[in-house]
């Protein structure tokens, strides 16, 4: 295998891990309570602005920005749950769609109002610029985002499948009434899911901000990738989002290299349509 090909695949994997990270919150919320959060992209956008603010106010990089963004977006998630989602869940599906879509518009235009429409970028020296290893070039910001993306998505998966609290969350998602008979308070678990989803989404935003422009509308672009990743991997499955994210990242990277950057999205979406054609529940989704 040529070195260039290795380079292309490694960049694809790093990108894919980031896709997985900012998609895992969306899939977690769906898995927990069958709610599609159309404001998910805006959560990522605000995570990115958290990093921008940490840089402009404190002059600090992602190691300070990621935890701050995690806390900020987790708080936003819990607030959205208690003030909005909890109430619209009792209504028809249309109420959920319009409710979270309304939240998306609110957050997007609040960002316009507060931050302005200008694109913001962080200095790329913030995460050590780029370096060379075994003949492959790495951008520090992308390596950090990729590695953290992989680690945090796996951590989410482990918490859900291997811990008592994860077991309680899954119990609520399968049968909230039966969970109550176990002494579990469904609303607490659902709020916790929003906190976890918010935290991982905030971290994703803070890491992406290091190599992607930040603007009030960036959430739209990112939300589309998140929706593709989540339905590709199977709505509700964090592991599915991870696998789908990595596949999409590598396919994008390879097709940009072999066919041309303009066509990479075409290849990804054709693959996406094919997967849904043969496996409508996604790679790891439940039927």
């Amino acid at each position, binding site marked *: 295998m040529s070195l260039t090909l290795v380079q292309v695949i490694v960049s694809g994997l790093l990108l894919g891990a980031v896709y997985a990270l900012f998609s895992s919150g969306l899939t977690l919320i769906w898995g927990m309570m069958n709610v599609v959060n159309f404001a998910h992209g805006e959560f990522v956008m605000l995570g990115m602005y958290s990093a921008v603010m940490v840089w402009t106010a404190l002059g600090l990089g992602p190691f300070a920005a990621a935890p701050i963004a995690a806390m900020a977006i987790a708080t936003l998630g819990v607030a959205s749950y208690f003030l909005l989602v909890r109430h619209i869940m009792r209504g028809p599906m249309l109420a959920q769609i319009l409710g979270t879509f309304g939240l998306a518009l609110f957050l997007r235009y609040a960002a316009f109002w507060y931050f302005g429409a200008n694109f913001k970028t962080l200095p790329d020296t913030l995460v050590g610029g780029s370096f060379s290893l075994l003949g492959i070039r790495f951008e520090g910001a992308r390596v950090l985002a990729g590695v953290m993306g992989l680690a945090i998505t796996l951590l989410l998966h482990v918490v859900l499948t291997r811990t*008592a609290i994860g*077991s*309680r969350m*899954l*119990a609520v998602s*399968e*049968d909230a*009434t*039966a*969970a*109550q*008979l*176990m*002494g*579990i*308070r469904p609303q607490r678990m659902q709020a916790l899911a929003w906190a976890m989803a918010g935290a991982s989404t905030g971290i994703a935003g803070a890491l992406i901000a290091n190599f992607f422009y930040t603007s009030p509308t960036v959430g739209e672009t990112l939300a589309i990738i998140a929706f593709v990743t989540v339905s590709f991997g199977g709505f509700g499955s964090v592991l599915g989002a991870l696998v789908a994210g990595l596949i999409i990242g590598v396919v994008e990277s390879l097709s940009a290299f072999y066919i041309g950057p303009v066509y990479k999205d075409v290849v990804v979406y054709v693959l996406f349509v094919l997967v849904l054609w043969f496996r409508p529940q996604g790679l790891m989704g439940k039927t």
Partner: protein
Amino acid sequence: MPALLKIEHLEVKYGDLIGVADVSLEVPKGSVVALLGSNGAGKTTTLNAIAGIVPVSKGSVVFDGSNIGGQPAYAIVRKGLALSPEGWRLFTQQSVENNLLLGATPLPDRTRIPRLLERVYAVFPRLAERRHQRAGTMSGGERQMLAVGRALMSEPQLLMLDEPSLGLAPAIVDTMYDSFAALHKEGLTILLAEQSVDLALEAADHAYVLQVGRTVLEGPAKQMADNPDVQRIYLGME
């Protein structure tokens, strides 16, 4: 004996629909009480209302001296009242052991869990064999065992069983009822809803008969077995 559970004039409404019109019953500490009645008589609704998963619209539910009517289910189970619900309602995506551990959620003392697990596995050895299997892959009998075992994990004072014989093979039903007798011997109080009169009256000390949402007959189980009214109400013969 003091009543561990005392229900007076319970009424449950689902919108305009009346699920239970007027149910009164008492469960003395250490006893096995059977709730009899044909399909749709209101047994399940009564148990669900006591457990707190359907709202009580009228009447009182007093458990261990305090009124629990209208409290949420997650608070009621913490007081020591567990329900093995109709249709089992297992967490089918999770393992048998995880289901049991979820049952132990209300316990304030987590160190008791290993002993309780051991006890459930002693009562239902089949569950021990299948502890790592997903609950959704088990047979009906095993699911019933798991539903009962899961309820036992909260170390309840009162165990409510909703139709534990429904849809099970006779041999499994016998094993199930043997386990209930053993649990009763250990001092557990049981409230049992059952369609099968013979089974229930053999296991119970006292029985109530429900008809269209009302308690219409009650008495010691031995007398109820010989009461011609029971058969009449049950089979709907006039």
